[in-house]
């Protein structure tokens, strides 16, 4: 595996505002990486540095081992799909897709053939002569993708590619983009603030927070082993409970307000010290049973709560329950027929020791 793109300690400031600090990433050939994060976290700035629309203040940018700092955007051979597609309104779909080939001095017949073929791949072979204003959002998206892929770029950048589409179309376009980019073996960097999109599409996710990388890993790693509370909160839904950690022999004891968790010490992250911590447990890792008011010490890995609200989601139920200290936890109940959890009843939510993550407070 060769790395298609390397970011080494990239930094960028706008005036006194440090938009990015010390971003290092290594992108493999053919990999689909998603840069995820809330708005203003630096993911778009990173994308613009890679595209060449901005110049980094610090760090290096290597494409196949070659420093591309001095190479202007139009010679970087990078493809890009813009959030609003940025199709040329005065050109047909075919001319839009042929434009990058035209810029590369490819003859008229050849570029027409290749643009037609590419539009065929994105299933728009029948709309070659349409102007962008005559295309639907999803169709524009396909033309933009075809234009970004037709010249076999080193890296394809997707800037919030599905942001402008409605939910249903978004789901089908996610799979469609994957199918098309995989077919060309393209190396892709996608930017999004939609964590679900990131989980579905990515080989790896780079999660940004306040201009720095919070965690880089596979969707599974980010979901199951978040490095900190920010990651746990941003990727998927989670219940975060403040607690105190003590180690006793091979066992870690996590004591919270009215509950107790026990887990093997080797489940703790390296370097995690005893003292204030946060216990993270996903809503779907919690099981509900009737409340029994048993002493805390007798029932480790569970917590008693009062049901406040039951939300019907169609395929599942979502129970919001209040802890004795007032905070709310969420529990996913897969069986929609289990209607026994009515508001104001006391329930016990329990978890397996394997399903919790202890995070730095």
């Amino acid at each position, binding site marked *: 595996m060769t790395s298609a793109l390397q970011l080494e300690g990239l930094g960028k400031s706008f005036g006194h505002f440090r938009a990015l600090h010390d971003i290092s990433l290594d992108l493999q050939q053919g990999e689909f990486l998603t840069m995820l994060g809330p708005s203003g976290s630096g993911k778009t700035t990173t994308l613009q540095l890679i595209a060449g629309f901005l110049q980094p203040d610090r760090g290096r940018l290597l494409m196949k081992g070659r420093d591309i700092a001095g190479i202007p955007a139009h010679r970087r051979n990078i493809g890009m799909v*813009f959030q609003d597609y940025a199709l040329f309104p005065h050109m047909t779909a075919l001319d839009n897709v042929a*434009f990058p080939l035209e810029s590369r001095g490819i003859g008229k017949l050849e570029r027409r053939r290749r643009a037609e073929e590419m539009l065929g791949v994105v299933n728009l072979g029948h709309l070659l002569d349409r102007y962008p204003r005559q295309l639907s959002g999803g169709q524009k998206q396909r033309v933009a993708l075809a234009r970004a892929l037709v010249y076999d770029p080193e890296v394809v950048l997707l800037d919030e590619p599905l942001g402008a589409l409605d939910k249903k179309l978004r789901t089908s376009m996610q799979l469609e983009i994957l199918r098309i980019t995989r077919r060309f073996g393209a190396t892709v960097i996608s930017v999004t603030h939609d964590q679900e999109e990131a989980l579905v599409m990515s080989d790896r996710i780079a999660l940004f927070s306040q201009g720095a990388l919070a965690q880089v890993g596979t969707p599974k790693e980010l979901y199951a082993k978040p490095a900190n509370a920010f990651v746990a909160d941003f990727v998927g839904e989670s219940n975060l409970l403040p607690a105190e950690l003590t180690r006793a022999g091979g066992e870690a004891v996590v004591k919270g307000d009215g509950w107790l968790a026990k887990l093997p010490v080797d489940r703790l992250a390296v370097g995690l010290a005893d003292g204030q911590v946060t216990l993270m447990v996903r809503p779907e890792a919690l099981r509900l049973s009737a409340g029994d008011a048993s002493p805390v010490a007798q029932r480790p890995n569970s917590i008693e709560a009062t049901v406040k609200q039951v939300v019907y989601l169609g395929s599942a139920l979502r129970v919001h329950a209040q802890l004795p200290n007032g905070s709310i936890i969420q529990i996913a109940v897969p069986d929609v027929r289990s209607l026994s959890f009515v508001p104001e009843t006391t329930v016990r939510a329990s978890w397996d020791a394997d399903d919790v993550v202890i995070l730095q407070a």
Partner: protein
Amino acid sequence: MTVFVSNTPLRDAGINRLRPRTPDGWFLLLLPTLAFLFLVFLYPLLYIVGRSFPDYSLANYERIFATTLYARVIVSTFKTALIVTAACLLMGYAYAYALVRSRGVALAILSISLLLPFWVSVLLRTFAWLVLLQDTGLVNQMLIGLGLTDAPISLIRNQFGVVVGMSNILLPYMVLPLVAVMRGIDPNLMRAATISGASPLRSFFRVYLPLTLPGILSGTVLTMTLSLGFYITPAVLGGSGNVMIAQLIADQINQQVNFAFSSALAVALIIFSSVAFGAFALLLSVSKKKVAGA
């Protein structure tokens, strides 16, 4: 067939109910404006056309075409207007681009520089150019002082002076439509062209320029129309060699008191301008298709 016929009105009625219906009464609100336009614009125009044919004779028009002086003035009017429009387009395009791209103080300076002279009377500005460009004026003094020339260069009483004066006055009419169109262009389009591998030059000619064509068209038509009827500036800054048609019309009214002939000159100007604009619009729509289809 009968089914379709009976269905259609029902469906139409349904659609109409959804759409806010425009009551015919609203049209009445336009009446004052229409009456005003008719009284002060359309009626006088028709009156002038009528006056140009005294006793239904074409004599006045024959005179225009038979006399080389008038033909020369018409040609020279169009030539001056074309040069001024071209000068405004070249300067105005760059100016509009700079204005659209700038922010903060730069934007304020560019906007004020453009609009402030707009509020100063044309007469005043024309005389200001006279002061600047005359043989003993600032420009000639500077050229002599720098040793670039020994004797003053004639900068007024010729076409140069007229073009400078008129371009200065007409520049905003070119810049403002261009700014309006340029502001509407998605900046990502230029980025899309760049990332697609287009050099800055290609991005400009294949993407930016075609998208600004509507602004070029309206700016050009506006500037050209205004230039063709210019009176004060050519009168003050021009010489006998570059009289413009408006001066001839004024002369016919003020000196010769020949309303019929001046009306004919005015109608001739309208006709020539319309033909010129028609040809221009045609040319532009053809070139637009060419750019889009390349």
